[in-house]
């Protein structure tokens, strides 16, 4: 019996999808509520997001946002670390608190019957952390241990050293998000208290709730738990997100005998507020975003240099890195760099094919509903909306705007937002094998860097 052949099927009619409706309501102290009722399963995600990220830190205090966010989970004035963890567990949740470049986040997901208790507990963590010296010092030691471990982890090491090296030494952005060994070592419990006192104010805070809830009762509850939180001014940061160098550079971090070279190529990208956002997103998908992108097909499927190669623009308030990232077998290190450069150049010459644009736009358009299956993902999208100051209709218009990106728009985005004249290259691998290959790349002399993090 042989298998019968059936023709490649055509898609049926698509069913409409809308990002969940949400309401934004401000309390009198300036705190904003963002509430999205999603009544599918009896679940609710509760999160606070504050404009208090690494970008808000002084350079000398790099790491205080992360340390303070971690320390929020280590106890309140009423509950010690163990008791606090148990309270969350009793609700069937767990507390996640962390800082990114742009914001501090606190979040938990619980069955919706436990919304009131979860919000009450999360509010206690937000407003009355204990910052017990023993716990803060322990977290500080753990962060230092993490930085020590990073020195033996080529992938993470390449990511961190590359991103930091893009910015001027004087800028906060030249030190990784969680701080360097030097700055973390200097932090104190007093720094955490001061950070909390100055940065954790209602005017920079949003409470985001997505799940099986009704808006009126959430507003009542939020007013009751947060209405008496006193408004205060918080300082606005001045961030220098300009590039460190206006010329290409080639750096090598030696890891003797490494079986692979971790490669990062790129430069400072652009701010999320840039009007070319959609053109750049589609351009990047073609270049190195989707599986059949130019870079992955070249480096993986044509040359078998690597398990994978991709490009990305990171989107933040400040101009964040654009980079191509891959790990290649040591003997093909220089050839891989050359192929990436070929693809970057090719992206800037002529127009991408209509088919390439269609692949990327239909991918980005089509996966949109798949990105928001969970209450946690919806709450996260709403937190992003607020942190990155996106328009209220951003998610409603996203798919149309992606679909309207043109071949010309993509070409223009590549010409304007890929900068070969200031391409920064970092190789983390075995110097003895790699260094002799790098001379022919016309990227200037190879500079060796150590594994210090500043």
């Amino acid at each position, binding site marked *: 019996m042989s298998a019968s052949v059936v023709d490649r099927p055509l*898609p049926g009619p698509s069913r409409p999808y809308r990002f969940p409706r949400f309401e934004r309501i401000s309390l009198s102290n300036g705190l904003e509520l963002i509430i999205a009722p999603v009544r599918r399963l009896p679940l609710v995600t509760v999160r606070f997001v504050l404009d208090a990220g690494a970008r808000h830190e002084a350079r000398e205090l790099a790491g205080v946002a992360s340390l303070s966010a971690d320390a929020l989970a280590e106890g309140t004035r009423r509950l010690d670390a163990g008791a606090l963890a148990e309270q969350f567990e009793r609700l069937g949740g767990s507390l996640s608190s962390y800082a990114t470049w742009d914001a501090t986040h606190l979040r938990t997901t619980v069955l919706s019957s436990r919304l009131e208790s979860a919000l009450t507990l999360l509010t206690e963590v937000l407003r009355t952390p204990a910052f017990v010296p023993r716990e803060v010092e322990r977290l500080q030691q753990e962060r230092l241990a993490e930085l020590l471990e990073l020195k033996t982890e080529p992938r993470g090491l390449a990511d961190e050293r590359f991103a930091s090296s893009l910015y001027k030494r004087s800028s906060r952005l030249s030190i990784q998000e969680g701080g360097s060994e030097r700055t973390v070592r200097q932090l104190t419990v007093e720094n955490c208290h001061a950070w909390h006192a100055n940065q954790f104010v209602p005017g920079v805070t949003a409470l985001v709730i997505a799940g099986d809830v009704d808006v009126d009762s959430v507003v009542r509850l939020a007013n009751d738990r947060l209405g008496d939180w006193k408004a205060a001014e918080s300082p606005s940061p001045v961030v220098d997100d300009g590039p460190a160098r206006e010329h290409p550079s080639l750096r090598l971090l030696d890891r003797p005998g490494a079986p692979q070279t971790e490669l990062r190529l790129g430069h400072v990208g652009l701010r999320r507020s840039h009007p070319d956002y959609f053109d750049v997103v589609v351009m990047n998908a073609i270049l190195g975003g989707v599986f059949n992108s130019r870079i992955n097909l070249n480096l993986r499927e044509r040359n078998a240099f690597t*398990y994978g190669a991709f490009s990305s623009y990171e989107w933040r308030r400040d101009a964040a890195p654009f980079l191509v990232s891959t790990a290649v077998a040591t003997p093909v290190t220089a050839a891989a760099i050359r192929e990436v450069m070929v693809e970057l150049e090719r992206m800037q010459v002529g127009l991408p094919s209509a088919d390439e644009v269609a692949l990327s736009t239909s991918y980005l358009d089509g996966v949109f509903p798949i990105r928001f299956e969970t209450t946690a993902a919806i709450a996260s999208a709403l937190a992003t909306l607020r942190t990155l100051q996106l328009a209220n209709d951003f998610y409603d218009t996203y798919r149309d705007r992606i679909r309207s990106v043109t071949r010309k728009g993509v070409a223009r985005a590549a010409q304007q937002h890929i900068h070969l004249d200031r391409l920064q290259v970092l190789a983390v691998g075995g110097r003895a094998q790699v260094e002799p290959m790098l001379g022919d790349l016309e990227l200037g002399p190879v500079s060796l860097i150590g594994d210090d993090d500043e």
Partner: protein
Amino acid sequence: MSAPGATLPIQTFRLHNGLLLTLSADRTAPIVAVNLWYHVGSANEREGRTGFAHLFEHMLFQGSEHVAANEHFELIQRAGGTLNGSTWLDRTNYFETVPSHQLELALWLEADRMGRLLPAMTQGKLDTQRDVVKNERRWSVDNQPYGSWWERLPALCFPPSHPFHHSLMGSMEDLSAASLEDVAAFFRAYYTPDNAVLSIAGDIDENETRLLVNRHFGSIPRGNGRPPLASMEVSPTFGGWLRGLVEDDVAVARVFVACRTPIFGSDDYYAASTMAAMLGTGRGSRLHKSLVRERQLASAATAFTFDLAKGSDLLVVDTTARPGISAEALEQGIVDVLDELRLHGPRPGELDRVLAQMETEFVTSMQSAGDRAEQLSRFATYYGDPTLLNDQVARYRAVSDDSVRGLASARLGPDNRASLVYVPRSDEGAA
């Protein structure tokens, strides 16, 4: 008894060729997940071909009779879908989540490679994927601190004759030896409808979907039966304390301690899984509290079960030392925590807290069509019954202090431990 609102509608059918089909409709969003499990993994590899099941998984993206190389990725992404595949010790899965009006495309692609893979296989494609996989090995194992743990731990915990003993990623030598004849033989033996489960979850009409599946998969011929495996049976405990020591390019020590525990899906599995959560899920867990917060021996400490469904499962404790703390001190710290649970059982309230977390986690994961389809395939493959998914919350709730105490006493003792210890290379000096 089940989780509130989380009982799934589940329909099961068997096609004439043996393919087991599971459907679970949920029309709240226009999304559908297609998930195909083949009951084959690294355990089925023959001698001298370690890593082949995984290399073969890569070949399944290299086209089939009507699909060009890498076109599978392209067509699904163009349709607005996500996709991948993964290889495990005893199964290989392939999955797509697509907008629901693209369901038939995903089915057609999966059927073409199940029914008509071999015409598309060439030496050139095999050579390329072999190099890609060798780079995957360098990336995930060889150039990664502690990267070898997930091949060293099964090697330590299962005897050399056991199908779970050898490396899933395989040796460079065995990868080099793989041939097109191996591809054809493996395909004919294992990639057959009667050795597969197809699960579809999300925005579907069950009757229409059943017809579609029949149309695309119905004429693919049944296989000739799987080649027999060496016995999976092992005794419930190691019968001693097994030890492995690795000097690696690492800055601090890392200590794993594994114990044999009842297989995934058995009644005692739920007690084992609960026990793992008590030991090592989250900040309230015993390992975190003792080793990270109080004694400050570790910067991270977790525990989990491997969820193996044959022979024996493993409960694994995974801890990373604080700089300056020796592997011996850390291992003793782990043993203290294991002994405390083994000798005194759960504390008042502890079980309820762990079960409350597990319930939320379960309901949370059921939001995703891809997760639902994956779980349906898991229960259908291992137990022939995907509706077991709806019993999971009840089976966790049936766990008692006594069942945890009994299991801890039987399985966490010195006669059932395997320590895998990573230390910094001595020539670099201990941290």
